[in-house]
């Protein structure tokens, strides 16, 4: 019995190793993958092809919507830019619609959500209801493991998240496999990934200028309600992707006042039976 269990475990381990790891691609994307895993980076991008409007579908499946910053309704179908800064247990995620941004900030075990409004050369920060108060909520570490990391909107989370190693992506999400790499006539080079799932077929091309990631393009195909094959595209222009976290973003803006709802009692009282 024991030997059989051991063999089973070894076989499982061997099988795990045989699974197509995207790290099998020796490539320029590895440097970026490592930054993401180390949680030490600044990423700044512009999404020049936002997706068409889908009503309510993204709130139905939590796996695709957890932690995502939804598009404000009056900015639907507009291009946007964004930024993600990570340093260990701190994480700043911003999505910016023409100067008006939505920000989520995590500091250790607390999270905050607030807005930024660009005024001339600086940014004015406000709480979500327009005032000066920002609520501190408890950070749930299990949710990232269960649902995956959020990089802002669903689209950007998917395209950046596809770069993560398979061990950092929860089971159940589409599996992106390395397809190939090459050079283009304009001096850029690329690496391709592809996933096929019940959600459809998607290919992602990561463009490099030398070793610098400059652009991410995605082509996806699925069926609409009438059963017709529809193609979508998304192009992210990567303005910055470096291993230097922008520390100024990882601090809560000074003018915001924190209302703390993050603490649970966790058994400090003597409860005995009952509570």
């Amino acid at each position, binding site marked *: 019995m024991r030997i059989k269990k051991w063999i089973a475990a070894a076989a499982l381990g061997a099988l795990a190793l045989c699974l197509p790891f995207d790290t099998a691609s020796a490539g320029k994307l590895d440097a970026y993958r490592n930054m993401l895993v180390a949680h030490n980076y600044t990423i700044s991008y512009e999404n020049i092809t936002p997706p*068409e409007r889908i009503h309510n579908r993204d709130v139905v499946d939590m796996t695709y919507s957890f932690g995502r910053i939804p598009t404000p309704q*009056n900015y639907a179908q*507009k291009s946007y830019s964004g930024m993600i800064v990570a340093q260990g247990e701190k994480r700043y995620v911003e999505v910016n619609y023409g100067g008006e941004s939505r920000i989520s900030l995590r500091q250790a075990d607390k999270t905050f959500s607030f807005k930024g409004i660009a005024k001339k050369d600086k940014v004015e920060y406000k709480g979500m*209801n327009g005032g000066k108060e920002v609520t501190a909520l*408890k950070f749930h570490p299990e*949710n990232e493991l*269960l649902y995956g990391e959020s990089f802002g909107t669903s689209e950007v989370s998917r395209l950046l998240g596809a770069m993560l190693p398979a061990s950092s992506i929860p089971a159940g999400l589409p599996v992106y496999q390395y397809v190939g790499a090459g050079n283009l006539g304009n001096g850029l080079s690329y690496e391709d990934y592809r996933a096929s799932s019940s959600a459809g077929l998607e290919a992602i091309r990561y463009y490099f200028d030398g070793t610098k990631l400059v652009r991410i*393009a995605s082509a996806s*195909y699925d069926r609409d309600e009438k059963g017709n094959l529809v*193609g979508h595209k998304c192009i992210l222009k990567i303005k910055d992707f470096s291993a230097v976290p922008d520390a100024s973003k990882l601090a809560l803006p000074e003018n915001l006042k924190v209302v703390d709802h993050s603490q649970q009692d966790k058994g400090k009282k003597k409860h005995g039976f009952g509570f």
Partner: protein
Amino acid sequence: MMNKSMRLFGAVAMGAALFLSQAGAEAAEKDAAAVEASFHTPTCVLMKFSDDTRFKALESNERFSDLVMEKLLESGKVRLQVQTPINKDVEDMLYNERSQEFIDAKRAIESGDLSAVFEGQAFSDETANTFSTAEQGQIITPSLTGRIGKENEAEYLIHGTIVELGKGAWEDMDFKMGMQVGATVLNNIPGLGIFGSIASMAMQNSHKNDEGFGVVADMRIIRAADGKVVWNKRASVRSKKTKNIGISIYSKDSAELNETDYVKALEKAAGTLVGDMVKDINEHRLSL
């Protein structure tokens, strides 16, 4: 509908009357110049607006297209080759034009030839995926726009999208966090993102905050020959003129609707969009 064609006739008549009233002895020369200038007004055709809201079934886009048509005719800035909006769904037309492209592209990706897709025309920065997501400077399939332009002898297509309709303060609806909601509910709902499910948790009353009826709509002008979007503006308006009418059942064709903020907001949005277009033409930010 009788009312609709009468309104259009009225608008055309008004336009004609304005033109004729300029004829006066003292301004004869100016008139000649004005008449000559009007012959350079660009030829356009108005495509029926798309409706991207969840209220598609109400055909607000037809009503809105008619309102925009009226305003365009009144403005005198463009020459409309057809006096009613072209009643075809442009997104359907675009889909039909591109459906083979999607089939070919999917096959190419499945077979591993990704460059055929990514380095193709459809993936250039300028190429728009749909009418509704096309921004200024982008290009919508020229074979389609060129054909529509030719069929109607129009240099430009005017099209738009209704992005939002509704009452209440929905600008921030996704983001409103009920400050009085304690951590209880938030901490113990598994898997909810920070931004999910917190909005309207504190809302007990079903009626939204009454800030009037809001409309968000886009209008774009597309050059038929090359499919380029030469102008694109979004209007976000509210109308709060009428009290809540207590009648509970309407149909989308009810005459009572004309008195509601819904229709008034659509009128206001149509006016804003055409007004912005006229302003940009007058101030030379848009030349057609």
